[in-house]
């Protein structure tokens, strides 16, 4: 139990517990607030209510088995988690993923980014009191989840991105589905902007709330829209491109006001940029081609081959019972998740199970700055600040 030290004797401040059960903490986050009236004097976050030991579990599973665990960390960005893990393992193995699979990965990860920002916008708006935006955002998110269900059979925890490529071929008719979504979405984003961007109540609640200086943001290792709102155009997709992002044409929205309103504007602009990337990816994806590299002993053989050829059967058996063993060494890969810099550090000792599998969670690191951001703010602004950092407790606690 964390306790907030208060002054002895006649105490001017009150300690209020914003408990793990709270509709606006977006998960099980506990913040002990020491308040002087309505103003926050000190805030101590208490984490760990959603800690499930994913890293330890990954170390007791083979490399392919651990992919399903990665889905469940940042549960609004499962494809992004899959991607960062698979990129790290592919780096360890020195695998080259075919271009077609890379483009499909980019398309899926950008659709996931749109879906995550829609959840953020809906929940942030409902925290501030704008209840209709919540349902509109979730209505659009349904379309994305239907696309994921068609591709992978699963709406959220898809595990669609696998080591060496993808799990399955894109389904027949996928271009129609994604095309319809792309046609519908821009006008819907315009609707959200019409409702919120110049809304007097929205502006009053979000402008000049939750400011952080750029030097402090970099010193606290913040990343994602929180850092971009402070003025630094830092995006891993442009700085250290991965999975052929260098072939796509998109902008990085950046602002200098560094408050909740700036972060809102950036995330809405990022939805539009992601739509551009999905459109470009759709044009680049060919109808025929490999979806996984050819690496016998690491990538399982096709089922037809496995049923007829002896060698393929032996590979299949070895891969699914023992697993493959990467060479000893380690790899650290960072991708740009909707929340910021998501990283995966894998160390291998030459055995089929990882020696160490660690995930650098953007929500965990960004949340570190929460006490700095909400010091001196009013209690109602705390809700805005927690929402604007865009935390997902599965990511914070793992």
């Amino acid at each position, binding site marked *: 139990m964390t306790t907030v030290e208060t002054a002895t004797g006649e105490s001017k401040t009150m300690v209020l517990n914003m408990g793990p059960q709270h509709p606006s903490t977006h998960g099980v986050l506990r913040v002990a607030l020491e308040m002087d009236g309505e103003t926050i004097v000190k805030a101590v976050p208490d984490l760990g209510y959603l800690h499930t030991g994913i890293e330890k579990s990954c170390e007791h599973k083979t490399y392919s088995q651990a992919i399903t665990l990665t889905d469940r960390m940042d549960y609004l960005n499962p494809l992004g988690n899959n991607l960062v893990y698979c990129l790290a393992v592919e780096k360890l193995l020195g695998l080259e993923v075919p271009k077609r699979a890379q483009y499909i990965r980019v398309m899926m990860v950008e659709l996931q980014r749109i879906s995550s920002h829609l959840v953020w916008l809906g929940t942030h708006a409902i925290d501030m009191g704008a209840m209709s935006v919540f349902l509109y955002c979730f209505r659009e998110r349904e379309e994305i989840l239907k696309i994921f269900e068609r591709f992978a059979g699963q709406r959220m925890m898809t595990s669609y991105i696998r080591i060496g490529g993808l799990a399955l071929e894109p389904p027949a008719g996928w271009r129609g589905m994604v095309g319809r979504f792309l046609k519908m979405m821009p006008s819907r984003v315009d609707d959200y902007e019409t409702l919120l961007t110049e809304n007097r109540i929205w502006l009053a609640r979000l402008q000049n709330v939750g400011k952080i200086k750029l030097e402090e943001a970099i010193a606290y290792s*913040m990343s994602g829209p929180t850092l971009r709102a402070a003025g630094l155009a830092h995006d891993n997709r442009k700085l250290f491109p991965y999975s052929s992002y260098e072939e796509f044409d998109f902008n990085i929205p950046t602002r200098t006001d560094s408050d909740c309103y700036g972060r809102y504007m950036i995330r809405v602009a990022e939805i539009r940029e992601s739509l551009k990337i999905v459109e470009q990816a759709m044009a680049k994806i060919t109808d025929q081609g490999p979806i996984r590299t050819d690496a016998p002993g690491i990538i399982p053989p096709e089922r037809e081959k496995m049923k007829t050829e002896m060698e393929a059967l032996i590979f299949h058996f070895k891969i699914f019972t023992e697993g493959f063993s990467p060479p000893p060494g380690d790899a*650290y890969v960072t991708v740009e998740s909707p929340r910021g810099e998501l990283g995966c550090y894998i160390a291998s000792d030459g055995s089929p199970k990882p020696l160490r599998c660690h995930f650098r969670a953007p929500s965990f690191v960004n949340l570190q700055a929460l006490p700095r951001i909400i010091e001196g703010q009013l209690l109602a602004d705390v809700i805005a600040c927690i929402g604007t950092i865009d935390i997902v407790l599965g990511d914070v606690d793992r």
Partner: protein
Amino acid sequence: MPESDNQNNNVVAEQLRSWNAQSVSEVIEFHGETTIVVPRELLRVTAEYCRTNLQFNFLSDVTSLDRFPIEPRFEVNYHLVSIPNKMKLRLRTRVSGADPVVDSVVPVWPGAGWMEREVFDLMGIRFNGHPDLRRILLPDDWEGYPLRRDYPTEGFRDIPATFLPAFKKQ
């Protein structure tokens, strides 16, 4: 891209050696990633030098590694990014299992605060000079350090689940 990373980071190793020859005990290159192994005593000053003189202003992550039963048992890795120079670097220290203490880099990068707390919480490595070293993910009264290799995956806290049927089968 990987080749230029290697060249850039060999430059970093050279710069560190020219500043203080003992700071670089080993340079490991693997798939375009450079790791510089730093002795434990020189970690804080090397980190300070990397941030101020080599512009590694962004600390991406602090991770720990347990190589039980190989000694030195623990490794602590610092993943650095230089945003102006577009470079990545990893600093590593190795500490023995008998004395898992490392200097904290919170004075260099305040963002290391929670990252080091997580390493302390789950791996049990103490950080000298950390402003607030206590458990972060596990309850404050938890005994044991779960991410260590000798900590079981099943059981209650650090007591293995000898009552489960799987154990009785032996």
